[in-house]
């Protein structure tokens, strides 16, 4: 008698467990959004300047267009596939507006040295897979290959921001991203040389001019246009109120190893 009672409660317990089991099995474990939402530097590879830059630009873009660009870095994928991780995270964060699905995710996995740009449904028209791949090759991978993660992410962010902003006719001020890949076009190379000379002259001028001042670090490879200037957006006063708009992704985008 007692035995059957124990059995019964055992089965009941197992039954209860099975009720909860599917939930814990289905959901892959990804990182959760930080309070800043647009910037989630779990691998700790980004500088404060980059984070602030991305924060101010992404939140301004979101205010005007509802489009959201989110940067996530993680130390490791822990055995998950990059693509599945990215899609799961994209949906968990709810990047982009729930109706327009105009979200964009830049995800970097440090240990695996993999990078993925995941595009929400609504942006697939302006950012087809091949284009996101080419943009990564041009603006990000050359830096990432040299462990220059901060600059790679920032430069890529600028490039993708530009695409999204121009699609919405959003006048967000952003510096030109640097194109790293060599073009075969001779004329282009010639112009490039001229620019390089111009830059060199400019730096020499700066060095002499700023001899005693706090000269800016010689960041060769910085942006050609708009020296100074900076972003005109201040951090919103209501800080901490950033969250996803409930957007979704169907798995569009492209991945790269570096």
């Amino acid at each position, binding site marked *: 008698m007692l035995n059957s009672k124990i059995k019964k409660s055992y089965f009941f317990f197992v039954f209860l467990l099975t009720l909860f089991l599917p939930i814990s099995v289905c959901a892959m474990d990804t990182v959760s959004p930080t309070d800043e939402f647009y910037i989630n530097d779990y691998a700790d590879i980004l500088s404060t300047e980059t984070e602030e830059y991305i924060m101010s630009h992404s939140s301004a873009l979101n205010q005007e267009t509802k489009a959201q660009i989110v940067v996530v870095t993680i130390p490791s994928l822990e055995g998950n596939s990059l*693509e599945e991780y990215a899609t799961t995270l994209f949906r968990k964060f709810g990047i982009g507006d729930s109706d327009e699905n105009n979200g964009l995710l830049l995800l970097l996995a440090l240990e695996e040295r993999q990078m993925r740009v995941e595009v929400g449904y609504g942006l697939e028209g302006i950012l*087809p*897979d*091949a284009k*996101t*791949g*080419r943009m990564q090759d041009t603006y990000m991978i050359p830096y990432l290959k040299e462990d220059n993660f901060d600059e790679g992410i920032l430069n890529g962010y600028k490039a993708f921001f530009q695409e999204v902003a121009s699609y919405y006719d959003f006048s967000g001020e952003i510096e030109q991203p640097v194109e790293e890949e060599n073009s075969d076009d001779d004329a282009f190379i010639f112009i490039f040389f001229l620019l390089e000379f111009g830059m060199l002259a400019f730096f020499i001028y700066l060095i002499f001019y700023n001899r005693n001042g706090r000269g800016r670090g010689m960041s060769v490879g910085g942006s050609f246009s708009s020296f100074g200037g900076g972003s005109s957006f201040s951090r919103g006063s209501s800080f901490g109120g950033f969250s996803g708009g409930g957007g979704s992704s*169907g*798995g569009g985008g492209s991945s790269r190893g570096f």
Partner: protein
Amino acid sequence: MKKSTMIILGVVAVIILVIAMFAGSYNSLVDKNEKVDKEYANISVQLERRADLIPNLVNTVKGYMEHEETIINSITEARQNLLNANSVEEESKANNQLTDSLNALMLVVENYPDLKANQNFIQLSDELAGTENRIATARRDYNEVATDYNTAIKKFPTNLLASMFGFEKKTYFEVSEGKNEVPNVEF
């Protein structure tokens, strides 16, 4: 007299309640069925897109690879199977076949640096990889709602309705078993 009207009212109430219950679960079954169909349509769109990309890829690759006819033929064949497939089972099988032959292609691409650097090829690979990932995502979404639906038609009282109105079990979209294993190629 009052007692009998009470009884009649009670019976009517029970009948209405039962009908409401059945109507409710019938409607939820219809909703679930609709969701499965929607997700399935998603898979179909992506499968078609994938099939559309193959001829371009084959044409690009052919110019560089002269000795890889077996692989190229297997890709074309898998694509044809995918286009001819007309059930979830056939589609998933053909899709897996295509994945395998494309994986084989991507392995030998390593031996053709010119092809690897070809812009056209890089773009096509990105589009293909993107489509594959969309298929994987659509497959997961589909299987999820299909599971939900399949569970519902087994449960009481929906199971009665399901057999009455001919709601059939949905087939899952399977992944090939060795999906994550890299095929062995000897040089």
